[in-house]
């Protein structure tokens, strides 16, 4: 897969951007912060209508048969507009796990509804500080225990979970209809995070042992590449916002963008955005290759640093107005942090990457 976008891919980017810019406003996003389990509903409607939920799934199961590069382009625009309900990435991760490791009946049960957006999927690996937790008990086809702060957990109909059966890690899929959900109050409420409490919940085993662990990392890596695009989109929007503000806001008789302390800060954001963009598309193009996990980890690290720094510095460049509720820059601060933790934090990905480099250089 080339990292040079072709005409069809460029059309996905421009069309998704056009639609989202026509629908999303800061005013519509702000109230979501003060309500649990509220998403920007038009986004999900648009995502279903446009087939974004189906982009990277095979045509045999109702998908569009495209790949990570194309899904990344949509995620980039979702990041720019802050509109991204978490389900795009979460449902994709869940669907890929079922596609790669499930039997035909399971695929028929879930993939068409996930591709259509009729069902929402979740990847529930996290337990507290552990990115891939194994505290959930799996016994006789039933799950017992709690997965904490699962993104999209308030609405997901199906989840991929890591659990433990004796000493072995299990990768399993569970329908969530009868699972207790405890929505959590977070700084970015539209991520729909909830603790999922499993009590003798029936689940289907997908993998067991070391292959289950490797598969869990791979699922997170797929999601991390999508998220890296979303983070890059957010950082790119902040770069433009900072630049535009620096051109219009005047102090000491000139635009503040004429001061090197400001213009150099913005130039540094540009560097981070371009590094993140290049890293993300490189990782997407390596799907299915031996170096995919390392490329995904690198993309994730660069994009996390880029979005965090862009959020921090864009607010700083705005001065007082930047910290107001109304200006909405805090929406990016919040999203930068929630995306930094979902799909594994920097500690996790740095370890994944260095372990691989260590092996390679041996």
């Amino acid at each position, binding site marked *: 897969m080339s990292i040079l976008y072709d005409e069809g891919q460029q059309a996905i980017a421009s069309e998704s951007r056009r639609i989202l810019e026509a629908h999303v406003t800061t005013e519509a996003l702000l109230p979501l912060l003060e309500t649990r389990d509220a998403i920007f509903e038009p986004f999900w409607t648009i995502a279903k209508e446009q087939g974004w939920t189906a982009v990277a799934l095979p045509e045999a199961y109702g998908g569009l048969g495209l790949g990570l590069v194309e899904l990344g382009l949509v995620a980039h625009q979702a990041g720019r507009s802050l509109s991204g309900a978490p389900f795009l990435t979460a449902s994709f991760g869940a669907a890929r796990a079922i596609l790669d490791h499930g039997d035909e009946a399971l695929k028929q049960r879930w993939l068409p509804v996930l591709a259509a957006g009729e069902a929402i999927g979740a990847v529930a690996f996290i337990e507290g500080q552990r990115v891939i937790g194994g505290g959930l008990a799996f016994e006789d086809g039933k799950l017992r225990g709690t997965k904490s702060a699962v993104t999209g957990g308030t609405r997901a109909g199906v989840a991929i979970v890591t659990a433990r059966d004796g000493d072995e890690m299990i990768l399993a899929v569970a329908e969530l209809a009868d699972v207790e959900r405890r929505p959590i109050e977070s700084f970015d409420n539209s991520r729909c995070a909830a603790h999922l409490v499993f009590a003798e919940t029936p689940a289907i085993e997908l993998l067991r042992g070391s292959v289950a662990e490797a598969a869990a990392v791979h699922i997170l890596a797929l999601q991390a590449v999508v998220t890296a695009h979303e983070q890059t989109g957010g950082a790119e929007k902040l770069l433009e916002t900072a*630049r535009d503000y620096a051109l219009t806001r005047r102090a000491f008789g*000139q635009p503040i963008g004429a001061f090197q302390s400001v213009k150099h800060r913005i130039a540094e954001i*540009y560097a981070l955005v371009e590094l993140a963009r290049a890293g993300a598309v490189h990782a997407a193009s390596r799907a299915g290759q031996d170096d995919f996990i390392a490329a995904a980890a690198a993309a994730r690290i660069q994009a996390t640093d880029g979005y965090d720094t862009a959020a921090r510095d864009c607010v700083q460049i705005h001065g007082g107005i930047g910290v107001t509720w109304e200006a909405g820059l805090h929406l990016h601060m919040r999203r930068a942090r929630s995306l930094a933790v979902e799909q594994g934090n920097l500690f996790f990905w740095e370890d994944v*990457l260095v372990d691989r480099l260590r092996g390679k250089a041996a």
Partner: protein
Amino acid sequence: MSDVEAYRERARAWLGSVAPRFGRAARAGLSEEEDLALGRAYLKERFAAGYSGINWPVEYGGQGLSPIEKVAFDSEEMAFGMPTAYFSISLGMPVPIIMRFCEDKAWVRERVHKALTGEEIWCQLFSEPAGGSDLAGLRTRAETDGNGWKINGQKLWTSWAQYSDYGVIVVRTDPTVPKHKGLTYFWVDMKAPGVTVRPIKLAGGDSHVNEVFFDDVKIGDDHRMSPVGGGFAVAMATLMIERYVATDSAGFGPHLDLFVALAKDLRLNGRPAIEDGRIRQQIARNYAMRAGLDSINVRARLMMEAGMTPGPEGSLNKLVAVRSRQKLSELAIDLQGAGGFHFDEYASQKEDWASSWINAPTGRIAGGSDETLLNTIAERILGLPQDHRPDKGIPFNQIPA
């Protein structure tokens, strides 16, 4: 395999065949004079093999290929550590610029041939004590002298002037107009009476840059390469002429694999250093950053191959790669403890952490300082305002010193 890949394969095979005589190992322990002589011999063979002036016109002795082949060859050549540094400025800017701006084509052809075969070297006499980043602030002057000109003044940081036969130079011919408008561009014979070259020893111990003094140096008007007062435009053209160069996400320092190997060999608090979180974080962050730069560079190559113009993000490599190389080199020295003190003046910056570290500041200043590059990104790419320039529009001789 694409044509470019085939070209790259052939180039690599040729480089491999001559590397035993000219490559890194063959150069070990040579004095600079011996190394330069080896470099001249290498250029002669490279010319004969058809790998010189790759994207230059055939009428001047070039190969008439595209920048794609040139970048492909350069990036392969870089890996072998050939003795090409003495000729990098010469063939990078002055010689291409005389091809474009000198009228006497027969003379140019002879110069190009001798430069490509390593017989002659050109330097670029731009920076001065009073003007590096502020090029148009230069003070070296040329006054009319009969039918020609007389040059007086001093240039600084001139790479390889001590070995140069010719140079291109920007001088002030009219101090009564604003600074950009009073400059004129010439070529000079570096062996002419009144030209004095004094090497400057740099922090790392080497002396590839020089001070060059001009005392009543007389040149004919046929040396002039720009209209009188139109020298700044040709100076800018000189700096822009080499748009397609092989880049290095390691910032021309050691590859990250060498740091990983070091961290596996050495121990920190009784366990392999690569298990230490501080070391791991630096490896991961550097890898991620370099992966981004590599991807930018690959995309630029793909765009060129597709007949498109690469984006401005290619300019990030120097800014981002060199400063991170500087920090990583510091860390590598720290990690080695007392072993990190060892210093070999002749060690390669691509392989030795101390050499990489001591020479890194040069990389962050030469050819556009970090700050100048940030200004360029802010102004040219992002459209932010120029800095306040108190000397703007004022005649040069009325600018407060």
